[in-house]
């Protein structure tokens, strides 16, 4: 093979359900592998907050949509000789297939590195793939490919209900599900056809075990399975929705190796070069099996397998794509043994999904064959109990493990067990509490009894612990056993001190801790070394366990460790931006001669790659575990400001234990977090804020709202992305939502604040040194206040803000920085209306927008912050840094299509799952690139508008005129039609879906006659009229772009009027900066 000189890597774009941070990790690994070979790399990925889109990782970076149009433009410009399609999820793979089918790869003589594209296509077409498998005598579920709903109905006559319906060529099971009867089939098939022209009707294997293998093959036909994994939940629940354990726990040697052998046969016959994942259904009563799915690319499972084993699958896959043999590569952990091996684990891992279904209105809580979770955690332990209890704490939903949690109110245990929801594991705990046996739970869930017995062990031990009247009466054996079954000190305190309430002080936890330590019951640090201690590891990939009696590493006690706390599971409001921040903090720490230490447990991240830090503790970010690590490391300090809210919330607790927190001191962090203290401070320094009050009775709330007037914003304190935050416009709504808000958190009273309509939202991201601002970036939201800052579209630098406003914002920020003695990153959110500036929030930590502004400016704010936190005196950059002649726009990615029935409307509660950031020479260019990157398309002809309240009707008037001028045809609902008519804008009036008259809004959308839907909600509350909801939901279900904010719609329309795709400049990052 001729060596490759320049390679193009396709990224996966914004994080979305089914395609998240794992591809930042995969892509970063591939880029590292290419770089090591001296190959010039070009990366296309609009996800600006990722680690892979950093200067030192790829040579050229394009923040542009991963679509054939833009990719071809870049190919023409960069003239690469190789392309990698397997590292950017389904987005990159689909784009690659399209590039191939359009002849673009051939035209530009581009070699696909790794698995040949024909092989990929073969695995993606289910029918072709099934034939291939049958030709090598591998079993697949009986499955019929159909292209119409009628054919789907016909197919069930051969297969028999229940059946599973799957759409071909989709992300993580989109449009898939079980059907038990004709009606369900008709409905689901109809929907699936909107994603794909071909769907499959398959035999149902409900109750079978689900097992997967990660397989690697090189060009010499050498093949290994790096890891196998078993789902806790039986088949029927998407693997992204399932608790997964690695390695498999309930398979005998014969089963394990039967499936392993099949995996290798499949991968060899497909001709994979690189990585591939094979998923099986395994009969729980025999060795019968079916191959369920194959992914000829890096996947969420492969990222998990890499973290579970320490085997860097993406890195190795990239090397194999360049022509290496597995036997020619070294094991990255031992550096002496070969990469041709299958890791032996001497621990086990449990992956648990993180759902955020509470953030969505109307969404079903049931989990099934389609993915809804937004993130995941991986817990490592030396038995299942230890790992699962760690994991249940890690998911961060206020649970303390399998038991000793707040009480769940479950009306129908049987129902919730047989139709699982996001809380199913806690329902199992409740079932045990109510006397259900393992056998009973098995009957309802079909979860393998081995897993249930393990959970029962935890439950039984809790019962045993309850029989001891006090901590000191606990025999050492029992206490050690409890710790080995994963009980936290908090759980023990809760069980042993019956009065303990959630969120009480740390005293009880520390009491258990002290007693435990006095009995020498402490956790030990173990290394993940890929070979179960057979050969020494040179990396420090670590976890902690109570199944041990010695540490695998030595502690220097040299005061050189700097611990960075990670952000935990990705969830709505906290994702890849904190991974970027953490990784950059670690890099600076290392560069400055300190030992960089990371604590995090999210397998979808780069920060949990063992080469990123000197020591990686893949473990809990709990008070207990961080104390364990801090006591061993004796660090120079701990950084709590780059990992989002979880580390931030630990600051005060650390302070009370005299743990050195680097940067802004905990008392000041508390002053910003605590609403009262913060408000008092603002009053003191003369900074304005919206009127607010913390109230605990209805009467007080009513009298306050009377005083300030509606609308008001209601929210609990100490939350990151505003769970249960809401704007209410009248007394009825107020009463209704108050009940919701107070249910969320009893401890914190309700905060009611005056909400300003039509106010601009402006953000200040900055880094300060001892209260003096060193670098800063001011950005502006396109949407008016009322859309959560995580969902808003943000432009930087601001385009439509008065100079006076900017001046005031700088002044206020300086005052706040000084008052809070900030050393490190911070973010302040402002409201601006007619030069009247109010502060709405202040966080003394890295924010979501920090990577965005850092990259637009090409000035790494985290590097500044970290140097300051380490005590270095940094120079302020030259003022010209802030004077740039291009624009960055950050746009949000929504995953409503995954969240069946959820109302795709935006509000004060965050709903987006990801974001992109694009650069342009002007505002409209940047916004168009960004909108295209999150899945919008330039409409061809027909636009459906229902424009909501009067102010948005007015807002949209000019845009509507522009659309007409550009020969678009407008379809409008009645109110909008009348208003447009009065203003001489022609449009076709459409009927609501419940009026059986043509033209009908729903039918138009369903029949793909509409290219863009603009639907503006009537008021600020999320409770909406059925009609509007139906239109919005139809747009999502039938994959028609939807905009629900008038200002954003307007911006988009202006942008498409000004720019055709061919006018958009194709410039790499370094061509701007």
């Amino acid at each position: 093979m001729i060596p490759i000189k320049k390679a193009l890597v396709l990224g996966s774009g914004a994080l979305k359900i089914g395609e998240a941070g794992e591809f930042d990790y995969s892509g970063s690994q591939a880029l590292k592998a290419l770089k090591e070979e001296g190959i010039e790399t070009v990366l296309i990925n609009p996800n600006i907050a990722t680690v892979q889109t950093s200067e030192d990782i790829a040579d050229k970076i394009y923040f542009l949509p991963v679509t054939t149009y833009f990719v071809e433009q870049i190919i023409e410009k960069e003239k690469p000789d190789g392309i990698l399609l397997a590292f950017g999820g389904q987005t990159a793979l689909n784009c690659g297939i399209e590039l191939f089918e359009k002849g673009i790869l051939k035209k530009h003589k581009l070699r696909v590195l790794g698995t040949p594209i024909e092989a990929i296509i073969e695995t993606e077409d289910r029918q072709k793939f099934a034939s291939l498998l049958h030709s090598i005598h591998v079993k697949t579920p009986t499955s019929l490919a159909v292209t119409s709903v009628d054919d789907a109905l016909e197919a069930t006559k051969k297969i028999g209900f229940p059946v599973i319906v799957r759409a071909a060529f989709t992300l993580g099971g989109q449009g898939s599900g079980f059907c038990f009867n004709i009606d369900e089939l008709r409905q689901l098939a109809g929907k699936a056809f909107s994603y794909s022209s071909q769907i499959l009707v398959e035999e149902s294997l409900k109750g079978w075990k689900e097992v997967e293998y990660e397989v690697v093959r090189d060009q010499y036909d050498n093949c290994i399975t790096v890891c196998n994994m078993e789902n806790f939940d039986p088949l029927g629940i998407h693997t992204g929705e399932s608790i997964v354990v690695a390695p498999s726990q309930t398979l005998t040697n014969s089963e394990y190796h039967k499936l392993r052998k099949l995996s290798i046969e499949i991968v060899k016959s497909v001709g994979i070069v690189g990585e591939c994942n094979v998923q099986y259904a395994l009969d729980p009563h025999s060795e019968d099996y079916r191959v369920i799915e194959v992914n000829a690319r890096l996947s969420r499972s492969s990222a998990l397998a890499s973290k579970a084993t320490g085997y860097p699958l993406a890195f190795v896959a990239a090397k194999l794509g360049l022509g290496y043999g597995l036997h020619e590569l070294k094991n990255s952990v031992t550096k002496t043994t070969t990469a041709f091996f299958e890791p032996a684990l001497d621990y086990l891992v449990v992956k648990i999904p993180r759902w955020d279904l509470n953030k969505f209105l109307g969404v079903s809580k049931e989990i099934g064959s389609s993915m809804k979770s937004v993130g995941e955690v991986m817990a490592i332990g030396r038995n299942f109990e230890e790992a699962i209890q760690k994991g249940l704490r890690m998911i961060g939903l206020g649970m303390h493990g399998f038991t000793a949690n707040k009480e769940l109110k479950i009306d129908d245990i049987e129902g919730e067990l047989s139709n699982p929801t996001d809380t199913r594991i806690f329902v199992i705990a409740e079932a045990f509490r109510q006397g259900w046996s393992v056998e009973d739970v098995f009957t309802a869930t079909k979860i393998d009894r081995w897993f249930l017995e393990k959970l029962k062990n935890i439950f039984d031990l809790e019962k045993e612990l309850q029989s001891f009247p006090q901590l000191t009466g606990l025999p050492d054996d029992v206490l050690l056993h409890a710790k080995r079954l994963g009980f936290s000190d908090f759980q023990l305190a809760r069980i042993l001190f019956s009065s303990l309430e959630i969120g009480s002080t740390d005293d009880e936890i520390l009491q258990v801790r002290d007693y435990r330590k006095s009995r020498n019951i402490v956790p030990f640090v173990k290394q993940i070394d890929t070979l179960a201690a057979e050969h020494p590891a040179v990396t420090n990939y670590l976890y902690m366990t109570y199944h041990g009696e010695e540490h695998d590493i030595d502690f220097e006690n040299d005061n050189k460790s700097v611990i960075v706390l990670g952000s935990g599971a990705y969830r709505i409001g906290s994702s890849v931006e904190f991974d970027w921040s953490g990784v950059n903090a670690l890099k600076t720490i290392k560069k400055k001669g300190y030992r960089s230490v990371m604590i995090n447990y999210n397998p979808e991240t780069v920060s949990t790659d063992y080469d990123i830090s000197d020591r990686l503790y893949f473990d809990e970010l709990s008070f207990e575990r961080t104390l364990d690590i801090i006591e061993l490391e004796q660090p120079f300090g701990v950084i709590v400001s780059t990992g989002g809210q979880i580390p931030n919330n630990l600051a005060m607790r650390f302070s009370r234990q005299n743990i050195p927190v680097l940067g802004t001191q905990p008392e000041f962090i508390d002053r910003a977090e605590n609403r009262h203290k913060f408000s008092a401070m603002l009053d003191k320094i003369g900074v304005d804020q919206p009127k607010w009050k913390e109230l605990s009775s209805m009467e007080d709330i009513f009298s306050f709202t009377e005083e300030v007037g509606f609308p008001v914003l209601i929210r609990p304190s100490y939350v990151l992305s505003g769970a249960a935050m809401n704007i209410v416009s009248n007394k009825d709504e107020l009463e209704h939502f108050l009940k919701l808000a107070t249910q969320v958190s009893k401890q914190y009273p309700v905060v009611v604040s005056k909400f300003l309509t039509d106010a601009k939202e402006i953000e200040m991201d900055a880094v300060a040194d001892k209260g003096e601002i060193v670098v800063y970036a001011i950005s502006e939201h396109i949407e008016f206040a009322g859309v959560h800052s995580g969902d808003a579209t943000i432009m930087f630098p601001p385009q439509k803000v008065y100079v006076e406003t900017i001046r005031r914002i700088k002044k206020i920020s300086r005052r706040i920085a000084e008052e809070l003695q900030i050393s490190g990153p911070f973010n302040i959110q402002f409201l601006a209306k007619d030069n009247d500036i109010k502060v709405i929030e202040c966080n003394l930590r890295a924010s979501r927008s920090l990577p965005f502004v850092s990259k637009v400016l090409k000035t790494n704010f985290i590097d500044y912050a970290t140097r300051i936190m380490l005590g270095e005196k940094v120079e302020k950059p030259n003022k010209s840094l802030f004077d740039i002649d291009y624009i960055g726009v950050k746009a949000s990615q929504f995953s409503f299509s995954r969240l069946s029935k959820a109302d795709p409307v935006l509000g004060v509660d965050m709903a987006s799952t990801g974001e992109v950031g694009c650069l342009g020479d002007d505002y409209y260019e940047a916004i168009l690139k960004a909108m295209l990157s999150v899945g919008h398309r330039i409409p061809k002809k027909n636009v459906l508008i229902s424009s909501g309240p009067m102010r948005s009707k007015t807002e949209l008037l000019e845009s509507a005129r522009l659309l007409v001028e550009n020969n678009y045809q407008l379809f409008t609902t009645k109110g909008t039609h009348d208003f447009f008519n009065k203003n001489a804008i022609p449009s076709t009036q459409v009927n609501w879906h419940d009026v059986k008259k043509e033209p009908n809004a729903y039918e138009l959308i369903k029949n793909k006659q509409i290219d863009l839907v603009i639907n503006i909600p009537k008021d600020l509350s999320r409770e909406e009229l059925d009609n509007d909801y139906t239109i919005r939901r139809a747009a999502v279900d039938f994959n028609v772009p939807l905009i629900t904010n008038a200002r954003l719609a307007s911006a988009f329309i202006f942008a498409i009027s000004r720019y055709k795709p061919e006018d958009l400049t194709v410039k790499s990052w370094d061509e701007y900066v």
Partner: protein
Amino acid sequence: MDKYKKATLILGDGSKFTGYSFGYEASVAGEIVFNTAMTGYPESLTDPSYRGQVLVLTYPSIGNYGVPGKTEKDGMPEFFESEHIHVTALIISDYSAKYNHWNASQSLGDWLKAEKVPGLFGIDTRKLTKIIREKGCMLAKIVFDDDIAFFDPNKTNLVKEVSIKEKTVYGKGNYRILLIDCGVKNNIIRYLLRYDTTVIRVPWDYNYLDEEFDGLFISNGPGDPTQCIPTIGHLKVSIQKGQPVFGICLGHQLTALASGAKTYKLKFGHRSHNQPVLQAGTNKAYLSSQNHGFAVENASIPDGWESLFINLNDQSNEGIRHKTKPIFTTQFHPEASSGPTDTAFLFEEFIAAVKKVKS
């Protein structure tokens, strides 16, 4: 935890570990070794090559799928590698007393008790493994109430203990395979029987030279190969004759010794499912199941012979073959059970050689 009796594991270097007993309660002594496989404890425990050894499993959660029943097939237990457990004792980290599998008939603990084999859990098996890795295999004993002396199994003839006592014949196939049983795993016999064979299993020191057969197979087995003097003597004659020969593990070492090569004891052996081997002079790599403490010295391979496989991790010898005669051997276990089945094709190659010579 008081339902489990405590016992102490004492190593030759003085290290002590306390664990909970879940097997038979009696003090025992032997050589301690570790295996890093993640599946296959019923197969490993019945592997005669573990004779005299205290086995440490590094995978921490053991007993999950219980132990299969004693059904017979082709005159052998269907799911085990021999009639009985051969390890002296089993050491693990975490024990699943509650097991679940369609093919299970009892728990691991009950099986150990029935076979009078001690088992301890609750031990830091990683620490233990690191001691063995750093200091090499050593003697060990498990002490319940009464202390006992250390015992070195390598100084006894373990092969004699595990080998069949009398000639036994399996199958009625066309090709007659003479199998020298030094502690053969049943799966070897199962594999041979797949290819239209009659397998004549004879004791380790049996003088088979006057028997009628088409191919010779030398099995795996425990201990130091140099203990098997009569076997080596018979093999020298067979090599001279140039009949098809296939040796696995101990069988490989014995063939090597008969050819004039030397063996040595590895520091802590190879016991796992993930030993990488490369076919010498090719780019063909295979994953193999292994269980051996001794190895053939690469440099001692005599003229007329060559290395067939090399271990990719430590470059130790993994197989030899005669340059002109149909004789080849592997240090690893192509029959797997437990472990990966990548090299099962070697049985086919052996049978092909047998067929070729016979025709």
